[in-house]
């Protein structure tokens, strides 16, 4: 097995006294799409935030490209090549669409993604580049949030609930563009409540339940029953 791009080794994460993750481990190989599924409150977002450096795990290691990043602050993690598309999009409301993208690119990592390239991927953003970010529809905001993350030229893109609150047709549209992103050599972790969408996009699947990995395996090998059991804890 090749060295993974990202290896999360048995991390514990807390919000104050509340423990959200219990010994969670996960591997992402270069060019691979990994899905993390689980019910509300299972710890999916916490896992992504820990990887992105927004939460510092109290135990365990996070190794990216052979180097430990578990204690690095978020702004330093981006410079290593990990970008997070946060839950709820969270574009900067007082910035225009293009300014949001430029902020994403301000870490100046070299790579294929430029304003022109992300506008090719999401042409609607080019049309609306000078509008304030809140003027976009939900789906367009999600595209802008993905584009903004791509602007940092990450090697690993973390997508938190990109289907949340969007119409199914918009979700399919956005998921249809993920292969173009992976084709540039990126690895992806997609956190989803929409299991069907996640299973279609990913090679590896991890299912979190109450802060623990309840199931993991290749997407094509997992049975519907085993996933539902892990998801709902029945």
């Amino acid at each position: 097995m090749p060295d993974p791009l990202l290896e999360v080794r048995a991390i514990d994460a807390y919000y104050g006294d509340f423990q959200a993750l219990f010994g969670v481990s996960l591997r992402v190989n270069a060019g691979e799409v990994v899905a993390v599924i689980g019910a509300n409150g299972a710890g999916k977002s916490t896992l992504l935030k820990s990887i992105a450096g927004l939460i510092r795990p109290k135990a365990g290691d996070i190794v990216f490209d052979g180097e430990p990043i578990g204690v690095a602050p978020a702004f330093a993690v981006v410079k290593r090549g990990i970008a997070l598309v946060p839950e709820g999009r969270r574009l900067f409301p007082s910035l225009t669409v293009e300014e949001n993208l430029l902020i994403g690119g301000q870490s100046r990592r070299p790579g294929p993604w430029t304003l022109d390239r992300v506008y090719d991927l999401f042409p609607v953003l080019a049309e609306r580049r000078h509008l304030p970010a809140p003027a976009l529809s939900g789906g367009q905001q999600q595209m802008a949030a993905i584009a903004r993350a791509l602007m940092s030229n990450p090697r690993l893109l973390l997508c938190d609930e990109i289907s949340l609150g969007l119409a199914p047709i918009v979700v399919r549209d956005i998921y249809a563009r993920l292969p173009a992103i992976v084709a540039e050599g990126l690895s992806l972790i997609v956190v989803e409540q929409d299991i069907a969408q996640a299973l279609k996009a990913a090679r590896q699947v991890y299912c979190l339940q109450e802060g623990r990995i309840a199931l993991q395996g290749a997407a094509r090998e997992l049975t519907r029953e085993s996933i539902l059991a892990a998801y709902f804890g029945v």
Partner: protein
Amino acid sequence: MAMQWLNVILQGVLIGGLYAMFAAGLSLIFGVMRLVNIAHGDLIVLAAYVALLVTQGLGVDPLTSLLLVTPIMAAIGYALQRGLLNYTLGDDLLPPLLVTFGLSIIIQNGLLELFTADSRKLQAGAIEIQTFQVAQGIWIGVLPLIQFAVAVAVIAGLQALFYKTALGRAFRATSDDQAVAQLMGLDTRHVFAMAMALSLAIIAIAGVFLAVRTNFDPAIGPARLIFGFEAVIIGGLGNMWGTLVGGVILGVSQAIGAQIDPGWQLLAGHIVFLAILAVRPQGLFPKVSG
């Protein structure tokens, strides 16, 4: 008679530029990091003393001293933010208030120890008394005019920095959402320190003009803080041009008050401030929320 009043208003407008400079740094800091800097006025006075040392030490005039005073104050601002104020920021507004209040007392007493309570003034030479006539009975001082022009340039420069540069974009993004700003690779501790450096650079300019215009001593800071607050609130938070208008309204109110009765200068300013606060608590030109 009409000319006399016109003159009063004109002087009020020109002094309003100075108040706008007091206010601009305050507004910038609150906008970027929600920090109310109670020591703002005392930092203005500190800048005046730094300028006093520079003018006396190097024998340069006060306006030239800005070439040195501005970077010195900016460096103090950066260090102050990185070394102290960043640690006070969080969900609670109280810690930065208390710490900057303490800082205000420390600066006042430090200056008192070093420079005594004697009143000082920066000497700008002949330019201080130069005036020119714009119309029959209307005279404008060269220095107040320069001061106003500099204030307009400072506001315009801030506006351009905020909306046309990468640093300004970083300020606005950090103000919107600190956590996501970090996800974009922005070290918010550095962004905040840059904002404080910029605020103190403006303070340096304001402090020098204040010290040329009037006598200063270590205790006059808090009143400058109040003028700055009033200008910010009259103009509307987050709007730099509004801050200039706020400063002008405050300056004109004070000038009119002083014309009616010399003892009414400050009172008139406070009354107009309170009246505007009562009628339009959001200020005259609040930032249009996105």
